[in-house]
Each structure stands twice: as structure tokens, then as C-alpha cells.
């Protein structure tokens, strides 16, 4: 077929497809119209293939390639329907993912504990490390028997510190998660830095014999805050594992599956950061609340979170998630047209 006949015979179809595609974004199509559109899409694809081999570089080829691309974008959808909405996510999907991720979470916890111990030991031996994290003013305050955390109630309005704490924590959580893509290096950095910081702060307060007040301050929010950071880090490690150990699968597919799991883990933690910010502003720094009360609030929230995350009542075989080893149709067009 020569070029001119090809164009003359088929161009009405191409123009029609173009205008039908434009309509698709404006109106809800009937089933019959959609069927017609899918049929024309197939014809356009075939025309495109012909043009690509026989008439490469011609205006018809360019037009057809553009039509094929916008048709594909409009008609092919990889959306996996999430089951049941928000409640289903928090009561089924998140706990199931959390339980599967327990070994990785264990790694994050272990790493954090080791670096906390390191920071603690190092600061006891060399108190100047505390200066590094707290700054000279806070350390000077400690020497005079004042906690820097007092400022949280006295000089900063509670609404401001709540939002500051929440945004800061979420930022750390997301960084720990996103750091997984650097094969886990950045995640490890976030974990170890936070661990050393905590250990060192405990160490320096101990140096000035103020550890009681520090523990009182962190007892209400500490357990939950540290759990959330470690879970975000575990999500980062899931990503890293998908990136590094692809096994027999294409790396992209393995990484995609890992990213889905990691994303669920992160999304499940996000609302808790808000809860955390309120505890950290309203309960932790208040001098009139007894240390015992603060500690029980901290433990209660931690227990509540763990119960929620482990959710012993949800069925163990959680549906809706592909195990990362199963072959998924990713990478293959799955338009049912």
C-alpha cells in the first residue's frame, strides 16, 4: 500500500479516534461508546505499527504514535481496587503487613538499641559528646539544674510546639522510609543518628544527675515515638531489600512489590504521629503531672498501638496483597479491550 492511499483510507478513523478520546475526558461514555472506542484504539495501534515499519518519520507515523500513546494512557489502567476503604486498611491491610514485616522491624529495633547504647556509653566516658547534640546553652542549663525541655511549656505556645513536633517527626519518618532507596544507607544513618542522640542525651543528663527528669519527660511520648521511627526505618529496609535482593525476579517487579508493602507500613504510621504530637505537647512537659502518670500514658499508648498494629483478631491470611514472590502482571499491558 502506498503512503497516500494509506493516509486517505484511514485518516477518517484517526480523526474520529482523536475526537472520541477528547470526549472521553469530558463526558461519561456509555458502554457501547466505550466498546467502540476500544475497537478504534486497536485499529489505531495496528495502523501505528504499519506506519512505524513502512513509513517511519512521516506525518502519519507521528500522528499515529501520538494517538497510540494517548489512547494507551486513557484506556489502560493498572489500578488495583483497594478493598474496603480506610477501616479495612487500618484493621486488616496494615496489621497483616506489619506482621509480615516483623523480622525487618526487629533488625531496625536492634540497630537502634545498639546505637543508643553506644551513644550512652560514649557520652558517659566523654561528656562533651552531649554538647554536640544539645548545644552549649542546654548543657549549661543542665549544670544549673534546669531542663531544656522546660522551654516547651514556658516559652513556646503549645499549638506551635505541637505542630512543630508533628511535622518534625513525620519528616524524620519519611526520610527513614525514603532512605531505603539508597540500599538502606540513609535509613541506617537516620536510625543510628537518632539512637546515638538519645543515648547521648540520657548520658549527659546522667552526668549532671538529672536523668530522672529526662526519663520523666520522655516516658509519655518516647515509647510510641521511637516505635514509629523504627517502623518507618523498617519500611525503608523493606525497600532496600527489594532493591538489593531481587533473586530470580526482575528487579523492577521486586522493588515495586516491596515499595507497596513499605508504603502500607508508612501510611499506617502517619496518623499516629499526630497523636504523638499531642501527647508530647500536652502531657510530657507538664510539671503538675506525676511521673507515674506520664509513664503509664506512654506505656498505654504503646500497648494500644502495638495491639492495633498486630491486631490479633484479623485473619492471618490477609487478602488483597500479592506476596512479593508471586508473579504479578506488572510490565504487561492488561487492558481488557
Amino acid at each position, binding site marked *: 500500500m*502506498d503512503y*497516500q492511499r494509506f493516509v486517505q483510507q484511514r485518516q477518517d478513523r484517526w480523526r474520529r479516534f482523536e475526537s472520541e478520546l477528547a470526549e472521553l475526558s469530558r463526558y461519561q461514555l456509555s458502554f457501547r461508546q466505550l466498546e467502540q472506542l476500544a475497537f478504534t484504539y486497536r485499529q489505531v495501534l495496528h495502523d501505528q*505499527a504499519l506506519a*512505524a515499519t513502512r513509513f517511519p518519520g512521516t506525518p502519519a507515523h507521528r500522528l499515529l504514535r*501520538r494517538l497510540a500513546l494517548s489512547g494507551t494512557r486513557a484506556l489502560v489502567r493498572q489500578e488495583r481496587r483497594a478493598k474496603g476503604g480506610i477501616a479495612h486498611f487500618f484493621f486488616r491491610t496494615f496489621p497483616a503487613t506489619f506482621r509480615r514485616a516483623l523480622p525487618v522491624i526487629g533488625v531496625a529495633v536492634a540497630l537502634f538499641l545498639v546505637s543508643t547504647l553506644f551513644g550512652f556509653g560514649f557520652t558517659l566516658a566523654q561528656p562533651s559528646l552531649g554538647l554536640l547534640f544539645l548545644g552549649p546553652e542546654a548543657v549549661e542549663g543542665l549544670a544549673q539544674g534546669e531542663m531544656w525541655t522546660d522551654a516547651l511549656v514556658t516559652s513556646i*505556645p503549645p499549638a506551635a510546639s505541637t505542630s512543630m513536633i508533628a511535622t518534625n517527626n513525620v519528616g524524620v519518618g519519611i526520610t527513614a522510609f525514603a532512605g531505603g*532507596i539508597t540500599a538502606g544507607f540513609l535509613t541506617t544513618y537516620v536510625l543510628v543518628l537518632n539512637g546515638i542522640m538519645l543515648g547521648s542525651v540520657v548520658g549527659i543528663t546522667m552526668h549532671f544527675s538529672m536523668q530522672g527528669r529526662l526519663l520523666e519527660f520522655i516516658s509519655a511520648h518516647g515509647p510510641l515515638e521511637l516505635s514509629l521511627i523504627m517502623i518507618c526505618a523498617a519500611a525503608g529496609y523493606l525497600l532496600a531489600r527489594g532493591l538489593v535482593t531481587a533473586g530470580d525476579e526482575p528487579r523492577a517487579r521486586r*522493588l515495586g512489590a516491596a515499595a507497596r508493602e513499605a508504603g502500607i507500613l508508612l501510611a499506617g504510621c502517619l496518623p499516629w504521629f499526630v497523636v504523638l504530637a499531642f501527647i508530647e505537647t500536652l502531657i510530657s512537659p507538664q510539671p503538675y503531672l506525676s511521673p507515674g502518670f506520664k509513664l503509664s500514658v506512654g506505656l498505654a499508648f504503646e500497648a494500644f498501638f502495638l495491639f492495633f498494629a498486630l491486631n490479633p483478631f484479623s485473619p492471618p491470611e490477609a487478602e488483597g496483597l500479592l506476596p512479593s514472590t508471586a508473579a504479578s502482571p506488572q510490565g504487561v499491558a492488561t487492558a481488557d479491550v
Partner: protein
Amino acid sequence: MWGTPMSGEGIHREPSMEQEGIGIDGTLLALDNIEVELPLAGLGSRTLAAILDYLLLSCLLFICLFGMIFLAGALSLGEGWAAAIILVLLFVLQWTYFFAQEIYWEGRTVGKMAAKLRVVDATGGRATNGALVLRNLVRQVDLLTGIPSMAIDRRSRRLGDLVAGTLVIHDRDPRPALELQRLPSHWGAADIAVTEALLARAPELESHRADEMALRLLRRLDAENPELLADVPQGISPLAALGTALRAIDQHQIPMS
């Protein structure tokens, strides 16, 4: 009438039509396993889009900050509340700027629209909302690793694209479609492509250069298919003569029914 024919030099050569940035491996398998070339966006245009987006984002953050300070003064909010709202607003803006736009505009942000780029999934289809969120959560890491990663990857993906399984492609209309309604029957695709490219781009060329090239094509037509030149009026420029001989019609000037 147009002098001696030249040997058709410059006509059978493969035209450099791939100005749309087709990369290696830039194909997708569509329905029926038909290959469609994907106009993958490269490092340059993506960096440009990112720079535009970050410029806009910093303007927005700035406006937000000062707008809130002004508003807080006007509404006499306590400084605690004003600071709280500003912090949350800035945080939300910073983290949602990219994925909110990409979800709403189907894979585009303002910067991507300006650079005529679009995010699609690996099959050329619309990327899922989850994928769009994911690729932008990794963005802060990509501020460091994005450029090397795009330079290395055959499909110019940054780490966020690898995680979310997305690609960024050029999303622009090709040059105004121009149709040649009358062609010598033995002309191949390369001949058609070169002639069409000349006629379509003539306004951008220096007129004497365009005429010079048109003249070469006319000489060839004159030698091979003189009948096509029979009804071309005398005394018009070679470019206009070529257009008349081949019945060139600019599709974009014909309103579609």
C-alpha cells in the same frame, strides 16, 4: 523549467526526525503486543521541569508564610496558633505539592506542563495514585541521586521512578500536521518525511535557505514527475511552488468537523 536535476542528494538520507527524544529501549508493548515508541524524557528536560517546580514551590512557600503572618495579624490570632498553622501549612505544601498536582493533572505538575512532560506507568497507561505518591516521597533522596540515576538509566528513571514503576515521557503535540495530498507514487517514506519536514519548518528557516532546499526537490520532481508541475503558476518562490505541486495542506488550519 527548474534547471538541471540534481541527484536527489539529501532526499534518500535518513531524516533526523527523532527530535522528540526517543531513547534506547524506549518502547512499550501495547495491546496485541504492538510496539509503540515511547518518547522518553531525558535528563535535561526533566531537570528543567524540576527547577521550574522548585521555583514555584518556593514562591508558594514564601507567599504562604507571609500571607499567614499578615492574616494572623488581621484576625488577631494568638502567635501560637499562627505559628502552628504556618508550620502545618508549609509542611503540607512541601510534601503534597508534587503528588497532589500529579494526581489532579494526570501525571503533570506545573513545571512538567511547561516542559511538556508527563508521568505514565511502565505500560504507558495512567500511573496509579499510590505510585504517584510513592515516587514523590522518595524525592528528597533524589535531590542528590536523581541526576546520576537518570544519566545512568536507559529509560532516564530516577530512584522514585524505579520504586513506583513510572516513566516520564514527552507530552507535546507534534509539529502542526501537514498533509501532502499529491505525491509521486514511487516516493518512499524518507522522501515524504523530508519534504514534509521542509514545508512544515520553512517558517523557522531563513527564506533563502528554505528556497534553496525546495529548489532541489523541485528539480527532482521536474526530472521524474514533470506532470505534477504542470499547474504550478510561474513566478512564485520555489517553496510555494513545491507546496502547490504537492497540494500541501496544513491540517491545523482546517477546523475538524
